[in-house]
């Protein structure tokens, strides 16, 4: 296996970065909370991929372990997030962030 047709590590990482920023722009631009949560999931996955890529490159299992825990956190986060969303939806009847301006005093 000659080395030149292998994938350069920075390419993988920049791919993760691209996914991450797509997710980030989604979070910042979209108004629908569900889509925002999905984009957050997307960002988390990008990070996971970067972890695994480095683990593979540096030949250390630490990366994969981290991914494992991130997945757990992501699951808990989305569960609670959606729970909140439902509770909020029950009172405010909307999922659009523009209407939900409780923070503004």
């Amino acid at each position: 296996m000659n080395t030149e047709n292998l994938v350069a590590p920075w390419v993988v990482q920049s791919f993760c970065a691209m996914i991450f920023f797509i997710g980030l722009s989604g979070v910042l631009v979209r108004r629908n909370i569900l889509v925002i949560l999905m984009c957050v999931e997307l960002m988390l996955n990008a990070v996971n991929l970067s972890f695994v890529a480095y683990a593979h490159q540096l030949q250390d299992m630490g990366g994969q372990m981290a991914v494992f825990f991130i997945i757990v956190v992501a699951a808990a986060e989305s569960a609670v997030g959606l729970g909140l969303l439902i509770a909020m939806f029950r009172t405010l009847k909307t999922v659009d962030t523009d209407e939900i301006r409780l923070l503004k005093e």
Partner: protein
Amino acid sequence: MLKWIPLLPLIGFTINGFWYALIQCRPGAKKAGATIPGLIATLAIFGAFLISVKTFLELKGMPAEGRFVEQHLFNWIHVGDLDLKMALRVDSLSTLFTLVITGVGTLIHLYSIGYMSHDATPGKFFAYLNLFCFAMLMLVMGSSLPILFLGWEGVGLCSYLLIGYWYEDLEKAKAGKKAFIANRVGDLGFLLGMFMIYTHFGTLEFTKITELLARGDFIAAISPAAITATCLLLFVGCTGKSAQIPLYVWLPDAMAGPTPVSALIHAATMVTSGIYLVSRLNGLFSLSHTAMMTMAVIGGLTAFFAATIAIAQNDIKKVLAYSTVSQLGYMFLACGVGAYTAGVFHVITHAFFKALMFLGAGSVIHGMHEEQDILKMGGLRLKMPVTFVTFLVGWVAICGLPPFSGFFSKDEILWNAFASPHGSKLLWVVGAVTAAMTAFYMTRMFYLTFMGKPRFDESKMGGAHDSHAAHGHDDHAGHGHADHGHAPQGVHESPATMTIPLVVLAILSIVGGFIGIPHMSWLEEWLEPVIPAHDPATFTAGHTTEYLLMGVSTLIAILSIAYAWKTYTNLKEASARKARHAKLHETLEHKWYVDEAYESAVIQPIYEMSVKLWKNVDVAVIDRVVLGFGRVSEWTGQAARTAQTGSIQVYAVMILIGLALSLGYLVRGF
């Protein structure tokens, strides 16, 4: 022994002061008579007089050049290279002054016992009088300029307290304030003059200064401009204290004080302190011709100017006040032309006859129950014979008729103005014209007061309450009680305690001139160590012209007396003439509107300026700037608050921007 001269009046002050403060001030304390405090004060000053006479005799015994007595009390200020000792030093010049101060002072204290008999708080009056004598003696006996300055401002304070003694009358309080502030302006000049001397001579002790003045090489090192500036600054101090042209305005208003005060302070002693300073530092002054010339010109101008105003004054004390300003002008004219001895001689003679006339005027006012307007007097020669005779002596002396003292001292000044190297013919002419005017207004006052028919209605006079008091101190009998409730008794001669001093002063006015007869004057020879006499060679004229001038000045005096006597015999003709040039008379009466000019030129602008300063600078500018900081922080707070839009996305975007910027900054480093 020296320290007792100033100390006795100080003790008198403390006794009277504490007695007044602790006993008199208690509510419900019974009114005290004037005799006890009066006696304490008079004894104190009389003691000082005896000791000064003893010192004088002691000095007489000494050889001419070693003629001084010193006494070191304690060292006052010792800081860095400045080492001031509180020490008294009496030499031939200051002993004369101490004699005058204590002598005339004693007479005036004695006189005041009678004069202030109806006053409510005599203790306070005599305490202030003694404090004044203490300050004046310190001024004259101080061995260095700061001690002289101590006395200098001390007498300023006492004149403030005494002028405003009847503080209940706002005019009198204002007059006191005016005197103190005018003196303070002069004292500023004196202070700066002292600093100049200290920086150039390195010392403030008189003895060391005179030593340095003698050393030609030392003097050459100092620039003439510095010397002239020093002399002029000191002269500014003198104009403040001795009421010369720019700063004389306070003296006429000072007549608001009781008459003995005017006699002691504003005739005999305080106002002459300027002359004492100039003659004490005559070595310094004679170094700069310009300074002496300004002194002579201002002296002459003041003399002439004050004489013109005196002519139109109707209040007896105001006439005397302006005549004092005029005579002081003469003294500075003398010092200006280098005849310091003549100046001192005139101080002494002036002290005698001016104090005499003030006391005479006081006894007239006392007798006329607070009437001070000479137009409402007349014919008092019958009612008040002793006052009349003594006043006559004073009048003749001031007009300068031989053999009275006024003639000798004034003539000496005129002769020196004419002939001395620093003098000039023009100055003599101004002096002569002023002499004529002096004779004129003095005769006018004398005639209107004592001669002719009485122009007042005796029945309305006297009695418990003298309601009508044009200028007089209306509360003479005031303080809420009728002190002499006896039946309305007409114009009466003053009691013995007032007339004795008058007689003594009259004698002195007659005899006073003999100490300074030209060419064999004991005074010149006595003051030789302090004031080097002029060698006649430098004079521009010989003896014959001197005697000729004497004759001329006597002739002038006689002519103007006769002229004045004639005009005022028939009052109708006098008032007709006055009406003819009413405009001039009116301006003279209003003192050439000098007070109003000062008010609008100096006092009003300063007042408005300070209001503007306060309102605009302090409140508007600085406070607004300070409060501005408060508002700026409030405004930024407000601006920041708008950033909290409440939408999560916006916060997230801000985080992103922050992240981007910081990463950008970090990455830049690679």
